[in-house]
Structure formats: C-alpha cells, structure tokens
C-alpha cells in the first residue's frame, strides 16, 4: 500500500506554512526563541512544559502540534500507533553548547539540570511522543543536510515492520539563530478523500519531499 503525505508543516524564516499556505508570520527580525514563543501564543497552545524545553524541542514540538492540531487529521484516531522519525544536521549541539558554558570553568562549575536533560536530540522526539501518546517507532537520525531518501527509506521501513497508522517524519534543525523545521504527516493510502490534492503531488517519495524543502526559495513577503 503506497504512503501519502496527508499534511505538512514548515517553520522557517519567521513563518509557519501548512500545506503550502502561510498560516503565521512575523516581519520583524526577532530572535529564534522569541519567534517560537510567538508561534506558541498564536496557536493558543496550552502546554506549560513548552517553556522548559530547549530550542530544538520547542521547534519540533510546535511543528508537530500544528501538524496534528485542529483540524486533526483522520489518521491520528489511534495515536498509540503513530511513529516519529526525525532528522537533522546539528543534533542537540545548540543546547550542548549552553550546557558546556555552565561547566567550562572550574570556579563557576554549575551545570544546569534542565539544560542537561535536553542534551540528546531524541528528547525532542520523546516530547512529541508524550504530548500525543504516540508509541510507535521513535528515532532521530543525523544527516549532513535535508536527505529525503533517508527520511522516506526509514519511514517506509517503519511502516513495513510495525503496525503504524501514521508517522510524523522530516527535518528539525536548530543551531543558534538558524532554525528549520519541515515535518510530514504520512499515512497509508486508505481511500480517504484528500480534498483537492492531486494524488501524484502527495505520494510520499523523495521527489515530493525535496519539492517542499526547496519551496522556501520561492517564499515572498
């Protein structure tokens, strides 16, 4: 059974895009953490733990939240059968550096526990899994750049080896002020209507993923 892209969410360059349509944006040059806070507030998310997360987890969490939020896609009626497969280039280095700053001096050696607990990229996937009750495959893989072959290959494997009903997969990258998130909600072709979307355009293959990734180059203010 072929896999289809049911929905996708893209957070880059101070804007949030869902299925190719801009749903939120800021024109100012706000710092990444302030922009992410604005996204949280704009979508009226009520999850205080968000504020305790590191930048990478915040970015992944928000993207998943928008992807799975209102209107909730039909595929997520059984969240326990949902998988999460994320990729990025910088792993958790953004928070690793902040943690290192707290331990680099012998005289000022005060490691922050709340920073330390995020010094693994898998924590981001864990935060999403906890929030949505997803108990399927849960992985974060590191690749030099957005790699659609890797994302498609691993996701297909997860569908073949586990009884997933849906999977969130894609790219969540954060390092200092540079952030990029592009996540896809992928499900099996179960005959449900996908509105006006053409079947060819939503087939879950590397070509369609790369097309979405490159779309940022065509974004206009």
């Amino acid at each position: 059974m072929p896999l289809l892209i049911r929905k996708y969410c893209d957070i880059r360059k101070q804007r949030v895009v869902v299925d190719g349509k801009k749903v939120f944006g800021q024109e100012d040059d706000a710092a990444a953490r302030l922009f992410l806070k604005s996204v949280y507030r704009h979508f009226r998310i009520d999850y205080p733990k968000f504020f305790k997360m590191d930048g990478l987890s915040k970015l992944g969490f928000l993207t998943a939240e928008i992807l799975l939020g209102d209107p909730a896609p039909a595929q997520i009626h059984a969240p326990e059968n949902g998988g999460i497969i994320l990729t990025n280039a910088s792993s958790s280095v953004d928070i690793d550096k902040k943690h290192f700053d707290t331990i680099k001096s012998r005289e000022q050696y005060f490691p922050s526990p709340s920073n330390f607990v995020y010094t693994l990229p898998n924590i981001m996937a864990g935060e999403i899994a906890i929030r949505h009750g997803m108990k399927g495959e849960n992985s974060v893989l590191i690749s030099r750049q957005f790699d659609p072959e890797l994302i498609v290959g691993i996701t297909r494997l997860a569908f073949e080896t586990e009884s997933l009903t849906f999977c969130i997969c894609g790219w969540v990258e954060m390092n200092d002020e540079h952030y990029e998130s592009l996540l896809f909600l992928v499900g099996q072709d179960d005959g449900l209507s996908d509105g006006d979307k053409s079947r060819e355009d939503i087939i879950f293959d590397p070509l369609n993923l790369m097309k979405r990734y490159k779309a940022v180059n065509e974004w206009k203010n």
Partner: protein
Amino acid sequence: MEELIQKLKEEIIEVLNLEEMEPGDIDSDAPLFGEGLGLDSIDALELIVLLEKNYGIKIEDPKDGRKIFFSVRTMAEYITEHQK
C-alpha cells in the same frame, strides 16, 4: 526577609522558565511542589543549583531539601540562617 523573598521569586521564575508567571503570582507560603507551582524533580535540582550558585549554600543531605524547598519563605529562611 521580604526583600529576599521577592528576589527569590524573580530568580525562581528565571531559572525554572516559568514564563507565564510574575513574582506576584507566587504565594510566599504555598508549596512549591505538588499542588503549588507543580514543579518536578528537574526543577528541584535546579533549585539546589540556584542556592549554591547565587547564595554559596550547598545542601549536603538531599533529605533536607523537602523542608528547605517547601515554599519560597522556607527557602528564604534557610538562606538567611546559612549564608556566610
């Protein structure tokens, strides 16, 4: 004491990332854990670091933490008694 309590509230909001809160939202006598601010075990560790980093107070016996971190006021009292 009230000045220290106010300062502690500001520090707690900062280190625990309680971004939705103002110092005035924290009751000086309310429990910090459980039904109060709903802090968790990582927050407890962060408060231990706060005492050591900002006030030079090291908690030797973790069992003491339950009393010390009961409320902002008990924290302030402990700091007043133990700060060198």
